[in-house]
């Protein structure tokens, strides 16, 4: 087993508000981890700390064996250059897609390889075609984002992240902004990625998806991992009262098989 990501003692506070309170997590290559929890539990912040969209207040993050940042006197400092390089190795998909509206679909996907990785034009184009094909949108390559449905836009966003050929993919409530009938196509794309062995860290409210796709489910509350394990033990037989309460609130939780097409 190869450990891709290690999080140790991760803390994050905004002013007086402590959002993450000592998170420890180890993610192995090819593992799919789903993070659930109420809003305000810190799950999105945890995800955003992994690629340093938010700078952690404390703790250490290690990617593929190399610790990020320079530790001295008990605190860790990060150089902008190091973080930029790190983000190129970690893919992220946002709730609101955030496609670049002034670029075509293909240009969106090529932008990272071209500007950040300095790939050749041929290589950029090859990657764009490959990953657009993978999310089933090769035929939309020359469209603009505004001409796409929400589900299609999110699949392009996934292709954009994949084109960087990242070591791990982060999904931050990737289906929350979508109309219900468009959720399925995005979840299906994510499931295919998981099946192919991509390492994924997913924040979602889709418990059915978590149940079928996750290797491990984490339940976060008040900035701590309260409970974790395989989907069966966390989602069906939770031990903690907080987890039980949370699951009770999700009446629409469909078991065992979500609608994935």
């Amino acid at each position, binding site marked *: 087993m190869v450990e891709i990501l290690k999080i140790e003692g991760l803390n994050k506070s905004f002013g007086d508000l402590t959002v993450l309170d000592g998170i420890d997590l180890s993610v192995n290559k090819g593992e799919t981890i789903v993070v659930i929890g109420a809003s305000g539990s810190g799950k999105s912040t945890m995800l955003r700390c992994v690629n340093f969209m938010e700078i952690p207040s404390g703790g250490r993050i290690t990617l593929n064996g190399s610790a990020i940042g320079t530790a001295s006197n008990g605190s860790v400092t990060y150089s902008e250059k190091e973080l930029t390089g790190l983000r*190129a190795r970690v893919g992220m998909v*946002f709730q609101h*897609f955030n496609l670049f509206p*002034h670029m075509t679909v293909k240009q969106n996907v090529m932008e990272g390889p071209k500007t950040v990785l300095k790939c050749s034009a041929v290589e950029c184009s090859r990657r764009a075609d490959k990953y657009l094909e993978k999310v089933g949108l090769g035929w939309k390559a020359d469209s603009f984002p505004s001409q796409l449905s929400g589900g299609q836009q999110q699949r392009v*966003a996934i292709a954009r992240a994949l084109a960087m050929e990242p070591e791990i993919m982060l999904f931050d409530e990737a289906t929350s902004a979508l109309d219900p009938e468009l959720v399925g196509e995005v979840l299906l794309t994510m499931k295919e990625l998981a099946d192919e062995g991509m390492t994924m860290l997913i924040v979602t409210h889709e418990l059915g998806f978590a149940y079928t796709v996750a290797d491990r489910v984490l339940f976060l509350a008040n900035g701590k991992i309260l409970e974790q394990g395989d989907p069966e033990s966390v989602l069906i037989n939770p031990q903690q009262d907080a987890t039980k309460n949370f699951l009770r609130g999700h009446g629409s939780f469909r078991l065992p098989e979500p609608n994935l097409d």
Partner: protein
Amino acid sequence: MGYEWDFGVVLRDFDLLLWGLVNTLKVTGLSLLFGVPLGLFLALWRLYGGRLIRVPVGVLIEFLRTTPPIAQLFWFFFAMPILLGIEIDPFQASVLTFSLQSSAFFAEVFRGGIVSIDNGQWEAAKAIGMDRNASLRRIILPQAVKRMVPAFLERAIELMKTTTLVGTISYADLLYEANNIAQSTYRSLEVFSLAAGMYFVVIFACSMGVRRLERHLGRTGETTTG
């Protein structure tokens, strides 16, 4: 009392007015050429500079925006040359003044355009490993500039109107020539009316162009949620 209009005398000097108009456009064009890029830098310094840059740049922008252009022109023409021990002619003083003055306004247009871009665009650029320069250059500015085009053109038109001041330091623009002709022909009514008409034709044509462009941009403007 019937005033007898006589444009004959005035039209004899029409080529002078036309040359004046050319000079007006020259000052306007050069000031835009310097003012727009300078405005971009001022905006970036004001937004992202360290405290030691941000604050003075902010003060400079506000100062240029809130003092009358004629005071600035006189300062650069009458005061600055003595202060620096240099010589400056009316044309140079005009271009200098209006480049700086318009750059302050353009800076605010740039700044407004940049901050109007959704934060998600910055995040998406950051997430694929772009640093701030690359994000600005590739993602933020291309979108911002498109939104700013009408505001830019409106500012450019304002600038053209403001350049009428250069006559006060004897640079031969359209209004200056009109004033000269009026004094030599005693036909102020015809000359000033004609000059006003010429300004109107040029500026109105520009305004109509801007309005059409605005409607056009409004139609094709992105309506994406992303």
